[in-house]
């Protein structure tokens, strides 16, 4: 009964879980530490600005359809001075690439068709 109640209120995606990301380190902490060092280094100002990186992060987040990442990189984009118009352009570009990536596979169908057709 207790388990059933818990299951009923559990979702695959919980907003609060974003803040619990560090709990992954309960097992194999050394791997998480390596991940975080890499991840954080990727966010810093470099040849690309933090704002550019936040927009790239947002675009990728939408394409990989990670709700945690979308939440985080929406905030990060705003906190680096981007506006919704700019963020939407980044989202469209990433989505268009994803659409194009699907569409170009249509050539494989054409190739397969041509191979077996007279």
């Amino acid at each position, binding site marked *: 009964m207790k388990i059933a109640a818990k299951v009923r209120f559990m979702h695959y995606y919980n907003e609060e879980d974003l*803040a619990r990301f560090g709990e992954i380190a309960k097992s194999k902490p050394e791997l998480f530490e390596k991940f975080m060092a890499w991840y954080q280094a990727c966010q810093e100002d470099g040849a690309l*600005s*933090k*704002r550019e990186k936040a927009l790239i992060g947002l675009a990728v987040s939408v394409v990989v359809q990670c709700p945690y990442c979308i939440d985080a990189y929406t*905030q990060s984009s*705003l*906190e*680096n*001075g981007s*506006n919704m*118009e700019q963020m939407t352009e980044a989202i469209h570009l990433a989505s268009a690439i994803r659409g194009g990536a699907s569409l170009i596979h249509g050539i494989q169908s054409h190739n397969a068709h041509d191979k077996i057709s007279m």
Partner: protein
Amino acid sequence: MTSTATVQITRHGKPALPHSPIGFDKRLDAHGLKLRSTDVEILQINVGKVCNQACKHCHVDASPKRTESMSAEIVEACLDVLRKYKIPTLDITGGAPELNPYFRRLVTEARKIGAKVMVRHNLTVMFEEGQRDLPEFFRANAIEVVSSLPYFLAQQTDAQRGTGVFDKSVEAIRKLNAVGYGIASSGLILNLVYNPTGAFLPPPQAAIEADFRRELKNRYDLYFNNLYTITNMPIARFLDYLRRSGNEERYVQKLINAFNPSTVAGLMCRNTISVDWRGNLYDCDFNQMLEISVSETVPQTIFDFSPEIFINREIKTAAHCFGCTAGAGSSCGGTVS
């Protein structure tokens, strides 16, 4: 040890402060920090809550419906303090301070005394009756003008400050530019203030200043000197917004997570005394709105003010103070570190 101030006032039946899982005083203690004042270098006068706007994030709760406004008696008491103790800077805020009937006397007398005078000017008040000569008045008195413009686009600005405010603000900056404000060679300073238009932290000041400079020039041919970024304080109308939108807990946690101990030494409460429209004294304009008065060890009104007594006093803090220590820090002059 530092201690948390008690806030008596409530807001729509709820606490006037946001819920915080950790006290600001505890966080200072954890870093071995104490928050005490230095010399009083800035007299910040809030002349009242009367304003021609009613911005959604306003920590003063100012609006055209408010009537609280500083009397001539209190204005004279403030001028007496400036005259007697030669406090270097007078920072005038509100509401829209220009709507106080004694505003122009306060400015002109303070300039005669020799104080640097800053006015928190909301731009649109320039189009109210009797205020159209404000650019010339500011110029004649070499006032440093500080004006809020939360973004270089209408949508974000109007969402925070009211429909039509952006277009009026553009027109007002144009008039200020026309008399020399914001023009590099003129010596007349127009600084803009960026506030996030929602429950997020401001961008790095230098980066967003460059965006504003480029966009305001290219889109509207407007000019300014510096852009200050200010974090929205989780009190008053912004706290209402956080509660309405379900963002209170998350925003406060964001401020706490971004606590930056290196900002504490540069917090404006350390060298500022804040005066309310009734002449009462506070450590800052935010404490003023929460009615957290200065330490009980010092005089409580402008009539009894004497700078040497106020040096090294304990600053009163509470959960909202996390708003000034988040990230690069926040003050009326922008980032701290």
